[in-house]
């Protein structure tokens, strides 16, 4: 169970993901292709593992997390959800904090998670790590 179970609407039916199962999700494939590692997943092992742990922490699948950042307008077009993106930011910060990462180490890890969202079209920026 994650530390934010009581704060977020995680799915009770959520089953922990693994590095093998997560790559089957559309948003993960999109991320890997965009980042240029679509042909060599092994080069992304560390980042994939991080997203697996993030998903397991917040108890949402990667596709669900992306969907939470998107809202559909009345005319059917899609827009980035400010509410969803803000919630995602909270997810990311809680996740990194739970791993004991602070300072620049925390910023770097937060940005690694943000990369997954960025490559799925969710515009977001984290802080820069400056000594």
């Amino acid at each position, binding site marked *: 169970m994650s530390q934010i179970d009581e704060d977020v609407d995680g799915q009770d039916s959520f089953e922990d993901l693994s590095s093998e199962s997560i790559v089957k999700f559309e948003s993960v494939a999109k991320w890997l292709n965009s980042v240029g590692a679509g042909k060599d997943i092994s080069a992304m092992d560390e980042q994939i593992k991080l997203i697996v742990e993030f998903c397991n922490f917040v108890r949402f699948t990667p596709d669900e997390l992306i969907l939470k950042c998107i809202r559909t307008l009345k005319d059917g077009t899609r827009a980035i959800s400010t509410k969803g993106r803000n919630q995602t930011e909270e997810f990311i910060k809680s996740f990194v904090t739970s791993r004991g990462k602070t300072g620049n180490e925390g910023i770097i890890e937060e940005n690694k998670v943000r990369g997954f969202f960025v490559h799925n079209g969710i515009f977001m920026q984290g802080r820069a790590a*400056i000594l």
Partner: protein
Amino acid sequence: MEFKEAAGTRRSIRFFRPWQPVEREKIQKIFEAANRSSRSMNADYAKAIVVRRSELPAETIDALRNPTTTASLDLAPVYIFWYLDMDYPNGGADRLKELVENHVLTPSHGWSKAYVDEFLWPQVLKPIADNQMATMFMGTIEVGQAIANALLAAVDEGLGTCLHAFTAADKVKDMFHVPDSWIPIWLQLLGYPAEEAAAGGQRPRRPLSANFFEGSADKPFEEDAEVTESLKRDKLIQDPGPFPHREMEVKMISRMFGLPE
């Protein structure tokens, strides 16, 4: 730097050296360039506040952050907040008469103090001043001209610069005592580039014939190849991006600052 090279070298720079401060004299030059911009009525449309990140409390910088403008605030050592002063029409008649006195606006072109006092101000400019939409329309164009000068002056001084959406306007208003008549236009970030000045090469632009016309709107302006070549020599036209090493450059800089790759 010659004008053509400055205009050709200008890019939106997004990676700055946070450790290298910008000399105050360079900021003065940038402001002076902005102050020399073309403007109707010789009015003061543009207002700007320069602040240095190193002098701002962390909580002030944090207040400016949002999900879309965060890394940039950490990297740029200087922020310039640009505003349109909606009070710019005030004193317009006096400024125009000053130009008449200085033989700038001359009888040869129909100008006189009487025209300003009796016709131009009451019939043209006052109605515009009383129309908020018209005031804003005119004003944003003129502030844009000032900012364009400021951007080129920054490039001329060897700096990188980029315009950002002006967020957290209410917080900025309180923090920097901004008058009620000032409307936020752009946040200009400024600093020495952490990426090469060419920033991966000149940005793609459509040919002149796509946007400029001669004689009528259905007759595209045709370029003279010799002129085009001379503009390449003068560096107004530069090597197009992306340079072969650009992807790696961005990756390495992102890694240096711990940003998403």
